């Protein structure tokens, strides 16, 4: 059957962010996928080498607007690891509250977009309407809708006021019934079952081989969550469950995210009820030479930061590994073999975030030739033919 190449992107109505997929199809079946990124690259790792340690928290906040807590969280953990200090307990609880609020709004955002991709615009509108409530909560807590600017090395910038807590708890509780309704609408819908069950299956072995992280791995039965495996913030003092499902298809990824939202609400409620008194930051005099790592569970998976210091007030190296970087290669497993009409939802199922991923995507193609596998085979065959003619064979 003849092969057709279907380009998706770089600016495509399906996508919010610019990225370029090249799907090779035979009839309806996808046989190969290639991905070109770099439309979002802003050179943040290099940029943070010319900022002071406090300024870098604001730069990494702008790595990704949806994960604008995860990156500063991992970065402050890395610098705290480098100085060997620990944030005071109250700061840890505030950080946990903000991180879970971000998970709530991120999962709702994804759920809405997934509904949109499947042709259920009602889910899109519902989920985004509900998301506004969470943004209101975040505005009460931090003063901002999206970039919260709460994190600083050794603590947080802003305290949670006692008079705000009842208002926040009330808003969080008012979200639960709507969320239950949304859960029923999504999980019990027969059409959604037909569209998502058994589609884009990532087996447990493949998830481990590709090093998948976050909900993508947990949907395949890999019980890996940094919040449980390597607790940070206040997660070890709070009662919550890790959600793991076994099938690895798109439906399980939906179920994981919906159930995680309920866990996030549980965590926020407990944190607000048990918020300890005390200072919200500690004094840091100087940063010694050395290196530190920080990793946290972002809504999309493990977010990893590495910082190296030479004793000055700027990091000499700052490395970011975003969760989507690990989850992208799983497309090779999930998209190939499916039909092209399922490609959109399978590509969206890992909740990809390209502006997080493009920290390392620099490629100078000027004056360079890109050799594909076929090109190399052709060159090799041509060389054999050449040698044959030289040796007098035909």
């Amino acid at each position, binding site marked *: 059957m003849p092969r057709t190449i279907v380009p998706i992107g770089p600016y495509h*109505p399906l996508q919010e962010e610019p990225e370029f997929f090249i799907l090779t199809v035979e009839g309806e079946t996808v046989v190969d996928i290639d991905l070109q990124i770099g*439309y*979002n*690259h802003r050179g943040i790792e290099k940029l943070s080498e010319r900022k002071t340690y406090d300024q870098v928290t604001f*730069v990494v906040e702008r*790595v*990704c*607007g*949806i994960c604008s807590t995860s990156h500063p969280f991992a970065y402050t953990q890395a610098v705290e690891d480098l100085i060997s200090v620990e944030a005071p307990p109250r700061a840890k609880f505030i950080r946990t509250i903000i991180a879970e609020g971000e998970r709530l709004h991120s999962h709702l955002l994804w759920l809405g977009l997934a509904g949109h991709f499947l042709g259920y615009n009602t889910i899109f509108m519902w989920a985004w309407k509900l998301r506004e409530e969470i943004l209101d909560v975040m505005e009460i807590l931090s003063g901002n809708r*999206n970039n919260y600017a709460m994190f600083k090395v050794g603590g947080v910038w802003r305290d949670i006021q006692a008079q705000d807590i009842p208002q926040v708890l009330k808003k969080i509780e008012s979200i639960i019934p709507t969320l239950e309704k949304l859960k029923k609408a999504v999980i019990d819908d027969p059409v959604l079952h037909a569209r998502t069950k058994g589609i884009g299956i990532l087996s447990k072995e493949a998830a481990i081989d590709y090093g998948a992280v976050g909900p993508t791995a947990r949907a395949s039965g890999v019980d890996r969550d940094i919040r449980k495996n390597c607790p940070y913030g206040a997660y070890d003092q709070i009662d919550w469950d890790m959600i793991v499902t076994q099938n690895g298809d798109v439906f399980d990824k939906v179920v994981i995210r919906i159930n995680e939202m309920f866990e996030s609400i549980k965590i926020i409620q407990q944190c607000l009820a048990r918020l300890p008194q005390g200072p919200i930051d500690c004094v840091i005099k100087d940063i010694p030479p050395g290196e530190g790592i920080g990793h946290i569970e972002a809504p999309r998976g493990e977010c990893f930061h590495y910082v190296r210091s030479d004793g000055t007030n700027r990091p000499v190296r700052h490395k970011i590994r975003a969760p989507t970087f690990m989850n992208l290669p799983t497309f090779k497993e999930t998209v190939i073999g499916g039909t092209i009409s399922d490609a959109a939802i399978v590509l969206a199922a890992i909740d990809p975030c390209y502006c997080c991923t493009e920290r390392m995507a620099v490629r100078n193609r000027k004056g360079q030739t890109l050799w594909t596998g076929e090109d190399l085979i052709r060159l090799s065959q041509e060389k054999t033919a050449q040698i044959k003619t030289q040796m007098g064979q035909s």
Partner: protein
Amino acid sequence: MGILDDAFLKSLWVFHLATGSCNNCDIEILDCLTPRHDIERFGMLLTGSIKHADVLLVTGAVNRQCIPRIKRLYEQMPQPRLVVAIGECALSRGVFIHSYNCPLPLDHVIPVDVYIPGCPPRPEAIIAGLVKLIDQRKAQTGQAKV
């Protein structure tokens, strides 16, 4: 005032272009379209093709890979056309001003009609900016304001 100007401002269709943004401005644009803010009451609709669009919404610190693509998209737009720069990055590159991959602010690449500052701008600010755009256009063509 021609019939074109009159019809043009009744329903502005917008095309959203992310040029290396952090997603924040992009999700605030989507927020404008969802129930709480509902920008469709001004006749605005997000369109998938640049050839159907009246307004180009640009977000993000314009990076090297995007510059030729922005120019191409701008040239493909049917006239009359309007360009709105959303967010600090599109205005002046914001926090990425010293980055090696963001050489120019947006208005050095294509002409810009309205600048909406903020990191990210609130949906209310985006709506206010677009209403100002309509008003400015109406003043130019001698129509009554919104």
